């Protein structure tokens, strides 16, 4: 990434899409968008649009994957062929495999897996349209889908990506900022708190101070996402006791 930086991504304190450094794109969350799975959610951040769904708890095959004392959380992240400009082959890639793995790790801490020994809980993430920040948006959507499915949880996970443009840390990396910025740092947290980070990745070239600042910024973003998650769940399950 540092090898192909581009100038002009931050001009007079404005980003290429006109946002301020700490500004999120428009966010929309909808819970219960599909009928067939046990839980589902759509999250849109600008033009990044992702559906996550949950099936389970259900029997886990093959049996050797079963855990005697807890459920196994399985996650699958995929991009629809039309979700990027140059058609994405529907075949599994190393990238989607890695993202599936870090997504699973990001979500596991909140799910009360011990409630369902030997069973599986399946999380499916379909990226319908990508404009950067897809893995983090998938995690935010997956957490909503788990809640919609009624899976017992200790909290909600939400995630956003922070980056570095010129000398400034910015929130919610989008478009060319992803490909040409100085860093891309996806961060997932529990209940919008930097005390419980469940996913952290980075590629770029930054200082330890940038990391600290980036995490503060990510906390700001995730706090906002957490509030929106709660609103979306309340709206979908209104009449319930939350």
């Amino acid at each position, binding site marked *: 990434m540092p090898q192909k930086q581009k100038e002009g991504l931050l001009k007079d304190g404005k980003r290429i899409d006109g946002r301020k450094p700490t500004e999120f794109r428009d966010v929309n969350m909808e819970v219960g968008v*599909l*009928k*067939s*799975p046990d839980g*589902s959610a759509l999250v849109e951040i600008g*033009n990044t*649009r992702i*559906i996550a*769904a949950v*099936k389970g708890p259900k029997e886990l095959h093959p049996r050797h994957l079963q855990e005697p004392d807890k459920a196994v959380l399985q996650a*699958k992240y*995929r991009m*629809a*062929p*039309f*979700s*990027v*400009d*140059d*058609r994405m082959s*529907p*075949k599994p890639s190393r990238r989607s495999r890695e993202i599936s793995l870090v997504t699973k790790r990001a979500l596991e801490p909140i799910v009360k897996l011990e409630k369902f020994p030997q069973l599986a809980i*399946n999380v*499916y993430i*379909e990226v*319908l*349209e*990508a*404009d950067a920040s897809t893995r983090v948006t998938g995690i935010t959507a997956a957490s909503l889908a788990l809640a919609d499915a009624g899976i017992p949880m200790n909290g909600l996970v939400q995630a956003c990506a922070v980056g570095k443009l010129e000398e400034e840390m910015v929130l919610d990396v989008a478009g060319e900022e992803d490909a040409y910025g100085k860093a891309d740092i996806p961060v997932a947290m529990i209940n919008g708190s930097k005390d419980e980070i469940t996913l952290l990745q980075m590629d770029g070239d930054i200082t330890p101070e940038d990391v600290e600042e980036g995490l503060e910024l990510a906390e700001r973003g995730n706090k906002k996402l957490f509030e929106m998650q709660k609103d979306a769940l309340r709206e979908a399950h209104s009449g319930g006791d939350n």
Partner: protein
Amino acid sequence: MVISINDKNIKKLIEKGERLDDRELDEFRELNIEPNFIHETADGSAMIELGDTKMVVGISTDLDSPYPDAPDSGMLITNVELTPMAAPHYEPGPPGDEATEIARVVDRGIRESGVIDLSDLVIEEGESCYAVFIDVHVLDYDGNLMDAASIGAAVALLLGRLPVLDEDGNLDRDNYKDLPINGLPVTLTGSKIGSKLVYDTTADEEDVRDTRLTATVKEDGKVVNMQKGEPGTLDSEEVVEIIETIREKSEYFRKRIREAVEGA
């Protein structure tokens, strides 16, 4: 599959000309079309809801070379993904028989009707051409994927665009021309359950259906594509009756597709 009480009820009701959701046997569920559902990355798209069946169809374009035995034809590739979230029995993995059959039938409906003249996709004969991909992404399955996918593909194609070539002969994804389209075929399916012919089947109805016939009709009423599926049999009168019903119904769907495209 276990035969549930529900399955028996569905069959009994249909023999009496009734359905669980109170529709007439030839009545379709509510159709919702959201054109250009994918804002930027697709070159034509639509979200289709037919009852509780839900899918996104998106077109992608690329540069390719014509096949050696068809130097004056561009490429059209149709692919269907039954995502694992769409139904309890769908699992991750490469497309199975069901997805492949839907993709083939939707593809034939487009190809045989001449809605895309593949020679229009040729850039230089035998050297370079456009490849047009139609990707059907099924998100929620409640039956009749074939008809919903065909409607979605038609909307996406009518909204389709081709990136023009820049000076170096590469695709310029900032400048587009319309995808050349001729006519609007409609593909619909009739199913046989017991002794009755039923249209727009739900997932529960498809579990008990004996057989089905899908047909594509052009605006002039001619049939360009047929596919009989499932193990059961049809007699020739039933075949003719299904085609007649599909011809009648196709006018409504042609109108809906055109309205969706004009409103986009």
